[in-house]
């Protein structure tokens, strides 16, 4: 179901590894993995980590993503202290969690909290592909459900930035049940009449795409992001077929009616803001003041 063999766009914390070519100061230059252009670090940052020559969207760290979407200083993380356990006693899981934690610099593959976007209060969640491929175990599922329930209870829109290789294998069916749990929570948010936006980044696959990610009332994807139940590489390996180019991309899903918009990163915050302005106008003001 997942595309776990797909090489992670980054080996570490969901940022591209710094270019390490001879003569180029480490960390100052990055090579675009798509067009091979050498990109100056500052320039890349100014471009929201989009390649200026081919528009490849580099992965963002959680902090970068929040900075890009939320108003400055307006994000307050919730439930940062939730930690995964090993419900099945799965071999190696503890090690892998420790490694993921060290690499990503966060407790799990998903962070959420209260935020404001252009002044509109929202609940904002961000997945981190760098933590065990953004896979959804109990903690991710719990945080996603809490984010959605918080939106329903406080009368706030929920914006979730998705990135995942799928369900977390090491938690077995406990992991898979997070699909049901988050899907049910989506319904609660919708029943409360609150806007629910999902933002699909590269890659959004498996059990995440087949649950809360595809239940967005409005679904936005970043250009060229890999999106699908089973990634094309896994399909090609398992079925010994060659897929036509361009399948399982954001643009493919747009053409097949599965996402509303493919939006360049530079227009992402603007698009979300416009939707929030139009679909959560009075509610923002009427929401009870908490914290």
């Amino acid at each position, binding site marked *: 179901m997942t595309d776990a063999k797909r090489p992670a766009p980054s080996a570490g914390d969901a940022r591209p590894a710094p270019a390490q070519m001879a003569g180029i100061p480490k960390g100052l230059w990055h090579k675009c993995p798509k067009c091979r252009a050498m990109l100056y670090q500052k320039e890349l940052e100014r471009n929201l980590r989009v390649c200026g020559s081919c528009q490849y969207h580099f992965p963002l760290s959680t902090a970068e993503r929040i900075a890009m979407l939320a108003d400055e200083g307006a994000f307050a993380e919730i439930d940062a202290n939730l930690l995964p356990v090993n419900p099945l006693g799965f071999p190696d899981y503890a090690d892998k969690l420790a490694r993921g934690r060290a690499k990503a610099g966060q407790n799990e593959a998903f962070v959420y909290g209260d935020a404001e976007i252009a002044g509109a209060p929202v609940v904002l969640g961000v997945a981190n592909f760098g933590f065990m491929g953004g896979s959804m175990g109990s903690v991710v599922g719990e945080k996603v459900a809490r984010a959605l329930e918080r939106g329903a209870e406080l009368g706030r829109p929920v914006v979730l930035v998705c990135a995942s290789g799928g369900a977390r294998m090491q938690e*077995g*069916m406990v992991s898979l049940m997070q699909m049901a749990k988050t899907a049910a929570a989506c319904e609660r948010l919708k029943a409360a009449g609150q806007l629910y936006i999902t933002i699909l980044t590269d890659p959004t696959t498996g059990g995440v795409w087949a649950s809360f990610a595809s239940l967005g009332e409005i679904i936005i994807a970043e250009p060229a992001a890999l999106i699908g139940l089973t990634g094309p590489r896994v*399909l090609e390996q398992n079925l010994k077929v060659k897929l036509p180019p361009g399948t399982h991309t954001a643009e493919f899903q747009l053409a*097949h009616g599965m996402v509303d918009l493919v939006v360049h990163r530079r227009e992402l915050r603007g698009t979300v803001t416009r939707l929030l302005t139009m679909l959560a106008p009075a509610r923002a003001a009427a929401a009870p003041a908490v914290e």
Partner: protein
Amino acid sequence: MISTSRWLPFEKPLQDIDEQIRRLEEYTTTHGIDRSEKIRELREEHDALCVQIFSNLSAWDKTLLARHPNRPYTLDYIRMIFDDFVELHGDRRFGDDPAMVAGIASLQGQTVVVIGQQKGRDVKERTYRNFGSAKPEGYRKAERMMDIAERHGVPLVSFIDTPAAEGRLDAEERGISEAIASSMAHLSRLRAPVFAIVTGEGGSGGAIAIGVADHVAMLEHAIYSIMPPEGCAAILDTFGRDGSRGYQAAEALKLTAQMNLELGLVDEVVPEPFGGAHRDPLETAHRITACLRQRLPELQAIPVDALVGRRYAKFRAMGQFTAEMS
């Protein structure tokens, strides 16, 4: 009924005894010498061994058993359990998916709406049923049935038996992920009692898509798994990325009925008859019937608002984690 023509590896000792019995019976017939005493002894030995083997099955044994080609499939159970069944077809959108069957059935006068994945037994039917892997139109047909159940206030009964949802390109193009997510979401708010039973392979999101139920039962030797253990072994370095170590992954994934019950992910294990469902389909069906006859009235006694709230709370509580002291 269905003959037990195929033997699984762990059934080898049983197969040997069966073969001895067969030869003795043949001998009796052809030579006219009565070997019934010996046959009786062998039968007793067979039965004792059967009990012993089937009470010590590994997770991998159960994986093989859950996929046993002679194991009853959804339409077999439907025929055996219900007095009447009108199969309905189509998602009103694109097509009719033979990997997902659906219809209206009567359980001793109690009307239920039935959905479930359907595998095929022979080569032709396997292809026709897509090996029990439903496509978007299958899940959308199931969703249409959910509406019927809700509208008429009758329980929905879901039979789960699928290796996984279909993930190939045509299914992707029509939104298999959306179909799975939507089906789960729909069940989570359905204003009707929902009963599900994992009868064979409960595989992946394709299984859980129709498994968000008030009461989830599992047959004793069924499995409920995040993915096929061979696949898990093939992609995790834990198992050396070696698909042939599926037996280890099966153990690690805790995919048996007993483990799923222990983990709180299913509500009940329905014992199978002596030697597994494929040895006595009718008795298996009787046990499912008994389970339904017990559980449906319990669920129907709960006011629907409470029922939906209870269902939400049940799935909401699934997951294990801890909170670090800050």
